[in-house]
């Protein structure tokens, strides 16, 4: 019987992991029909959820709030799944702008969607929120990376094959200059750096990053580590699959904060129909395990099943 208690505790997200195990809960209801002792024992052995209070055990408010979050992961996932991708992206950005979540979500969306997708996201944003996307980003973000973000969301990058190798080389040097000659807090405001990152085509930028490594021996993401926004911009443009793998992996850390855990839904849903295979490969390479296995181990119930279906075979 200890197994049933263990299983139920796990189902109620008492042993970590994301989501809840609905079917175990329902099975236990019928197993424990007319057995109040079982439930009493369950409550006595689940200190996170219940605490002794006179002759009974009462709920911990914190845990009930935690349960609310865990129960709604599947709901949130399914609503996102049903939504049009442009509305999804527009709503994520709007949410981030108005509830001060990490603004890096804006960088993720602006840099990993195609030029036409970004245009359509801007259209969706206008019809949903009656402001232009760049208007809200410029107005609501006052930090030193504001210019970078406005530039990234306003871009309509050339997507053809033409690349100017000489230009890539000289712009690699300009970037290096910006890194070396600016105070750490000023790098993200450097006009040439922002110009290059927010207007050049992605192919051109990849060439530029390669040149940077050839010239200076270090990957550019490392040298731009002085600023999280710059680093993320480069990662999203250069190696999006690696970037997404990292975000997914961070979400499975039990100590991660709410936005970090929520990122799992965002990445899986937004990439399921795009480049999930590449992300799985990258995940395996980076972390030594298969993404499906990590999901199966760290999530529960319908939430787990839905994620596994999205991630595919």
């Amino acid at each position, binding site marked *: 019987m200890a197994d049933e208690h263990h299983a139920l505790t796990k189902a109620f997200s008492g042993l970590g992991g994301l989501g809840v195990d609905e079917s175990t809960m329902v099975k236990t209801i019928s197993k424990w029909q007319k057995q109040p002792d079982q439930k009493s024992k369950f409550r006595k052995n689940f200190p996170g959820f219940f605490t002794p209070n006179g002759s009974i055990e009462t709920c911990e408010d914190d845990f009930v709030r935690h349960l609310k979050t865990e129960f709604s992961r599947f709901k949130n996932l399914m609503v996102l799944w049903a939504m049009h991708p442009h509305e999804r992206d527009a709503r994520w950005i709007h949410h981030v702008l108005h509830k001060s979540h990490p603004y890096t979500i804006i960088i993720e969306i602006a840099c990993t969607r195609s030029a036409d997708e970004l245009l359509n996201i801007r259209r969706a944003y206008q019809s949903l929120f009656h402001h232009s996307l760049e208007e809200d980003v410029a107005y609501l973000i006052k930090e030193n990376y504001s210019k970078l973000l406005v*530039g990234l969301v*306003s871009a*309509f990058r050339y997507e*053809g094959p033409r690349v100017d190798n000489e230009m890539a080389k000289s712009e690699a040097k300009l970037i290096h200059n910006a890194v070396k000659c600016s105070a750490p807090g000023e790098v993200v405001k450097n006009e040439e750096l922002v110009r290059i990152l*927010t207007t050049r085509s992605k192919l051109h930028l990849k060439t530029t990053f390669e040149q940077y490594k050839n010239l200076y021996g270090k990957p550019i993401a490392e040298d731009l580590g002085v600023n999280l926004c710059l680093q993320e911009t480069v990662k999203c443009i250069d190696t999006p699959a690696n970037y997404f793998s990292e975000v997914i992996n961070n979400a499975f850390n039990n100590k991660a904060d709410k936005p970090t855990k929520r990122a799992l839904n965002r990445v899986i849903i937004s990439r399921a129909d795009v480049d999930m295979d590449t992300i799985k490969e990258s995940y395996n390479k980076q972390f030594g395990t298969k993404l499906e296995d990590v999901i199966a181990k760290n999530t529960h119930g319908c939430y787990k099943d839905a994620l596994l279906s999205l991630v595919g075979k």
Partner: protein
Amino acid sequence: MATLTIPSSIPSPQEDCEQLHKAFEGWGTNEKLIVSVLAHRDAAQRRAIRDAYQATYGKDLLETLLHETHGDFEKVVLLWTLDPRERDAHLANEAATKWAPENRVLIEIACTRSSEELFAVRRAYHAQYKRSLEEDVAAHTTGDFRKLFVPLVSSFRYEGEEMNMSLAKSEAKMLHEKISDKKYTDEEVIRVLTTRSKPQIVATLNQYHNEFGNPINKDLKSDPKDEFLAALRAVIRCICCPEKYMEKVIRLAVNRHGTDENALTRIVTTRAEVDLKAIKEVYQTRNSTPLEKAIKHDTWGHYERMLLALLGCDEA
């Protein structure tokens, strides 16, 4: 309203391109024939003619025109024949790559086209130049001008009519403070002008005028030689009163010692299918003389004929 006049029944694109081919044949070119066809076809019709010409004669009509016509006539015919968005892309490319502080063409295009039109220009720019418009503008402008022009050409303004009056008040106040401190290149000034919707900007500038006594452009005239201030004033005029802005460009173009044909050609070809009629009315009011008269006085030959045709004033 447009000034372009199209006959009620027009020949097929095939017949049109045959006429044009005749116009090019032999020694010399029949410019009159070119004008009679092209100056009386809208964008879709001109595109059909170009396609028919390519299919029939295996040559690009634009290249043939380039070869067969010269000078100002060549410029006006070429610009006119292009699709409106290709034309804007061409003008923007010229303005960006040969940029000088007194050049206002980028402002004109970025601020008088609708949001969707501006995006179509950016798309046409990719196809023609294999780079993005903002990329070229950023690479060829510097300092404060870059800070203004890049967001301007990248804007995708909301086009609803709503205005937030309390926001208009607070942003008018902010603008007044910055301008009083001569902080014309301040990020906040640029933010409002390059990201707010046009109705919102108009409401903000009306608030400015009501609260502080002067229209904003008067307060932006502190230094007549400052090209950045002139650029700001142009942005504001293009957003608030584009027809008046265009009229002034034409008026200065014809009043100069010698005419600024490039400016004249640009305004006539880009507005003939849009609002050249309204611009003509503003011109008449402002100068007490019709625009046709000024053009007849200041231009001549086939160039004049083409301009008058686009103004809807040719003797058919």
